[in-house]
């Protein structure tokens, strides 16, 4: 195995972990699957298969697709389990918790709930684009869906989010 590639990978874990953890925590917010477990498995799987990594894609998107596939496998395994949240959506740290006013905090909790209720693909796209900050070509690389279709799906996801939030009473006069 290429020692140089392995060494480079080991050094990048500390840098890539926090971003991937945040994205996966948002993606898994409504499931019984723990982001930490998925990430541990992701990095080990990637390390074992580092020789198959093509430099055309970024290491982050490669890791992200491994993590997403592992999460989807877990969803399938646990399909029979009751749908419940392992990380309740209101337990996430806020970027600036102390300064967040109560009404804004409630809105954020509802926003998380609305994202968590989206179907898997729409939730993936919303998390990758708006929370993780990926570009459409990067999302296309991970999901295998072309950019035009992704934008239509993003429209659907936002439309559903707007409807959910309206039902929850967010943004109502």
């Amino acid at each position, binding site marked *: 195995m290429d020692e140089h590639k392995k060494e480079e990978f080991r050094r990048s874990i500390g840098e890539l972990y926090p971003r991937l953890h945040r994205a996966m925590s948002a993606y898994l917010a409504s499931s019984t699957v723990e982001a930490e477990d998925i990430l541990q498995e992701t990095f080990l799987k990637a390390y074992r298969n580092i020789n198959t990594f093509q430099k055309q894609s970024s290491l982050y998107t490669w890791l992200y697709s491994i993590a997403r596939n592992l999460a989807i496998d877990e969803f399938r395994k646990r399909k029979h389990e009751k749908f419940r949240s392992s990380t309740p959506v209101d337990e996430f740290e806020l970027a600036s918790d102390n300064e967040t006013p109560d009404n804004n905090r409630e809105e954020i909790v509802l926003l998380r709930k609305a994202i968590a209720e989206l179907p898997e693909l729409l939730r993936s796209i919303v998390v990758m684009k708006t929370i993780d900050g990926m570009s459409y070509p990067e999302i296309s690389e991970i999901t295998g869906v072309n950019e035009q279709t992704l*934008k239509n799906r993003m429209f659907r996801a936002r439309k559903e989010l707007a409807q959910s939030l309206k039902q929850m009473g967010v943004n109502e006069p």
Partner: protein
Amino acid sequence: MKNFNMITPEELERMITDAADGLLSRAELKELEKALEAYPGLMQDYRNIMNLPDFNQAFGHVESYQNHQHVEQILDSIRQIDEKTTFYNTTVVWFKKYALAASLLIFALTSFFYFSQPDILNGNISYEEFYYPEEISASEDYASYLDDWFEQ
């Protein structure tokens, strides 16, 4: 500047996505809103979408010490994988390198053991006798018993 004439609803949906992503200029936004007037449903969706709060603020960051602990756990597991791989590689290399020598050694030892038997060297014992020594069976016992009985 994008052309908003003869635009399909699917294209308009993509334009709304671009608008929500902040990719359209003011002039393009005005053109989009003009095009949406022909589609009241889409116009309502556009307004709702543009009114959505910022998703990015909904998920904060985990404390860095927690991330550091998880990273350390992953690095520990990687070290264990490396140790196992090193042992595996060493044994495979050793086997490939010395398999022929080991086979020849085992052959030489068994040959030495075989030829070191004095009876074999004197030709007093056959190959079959050496490996399958004669045993008196129960039927042979019974036959000799009958012989003795008739003789009496």
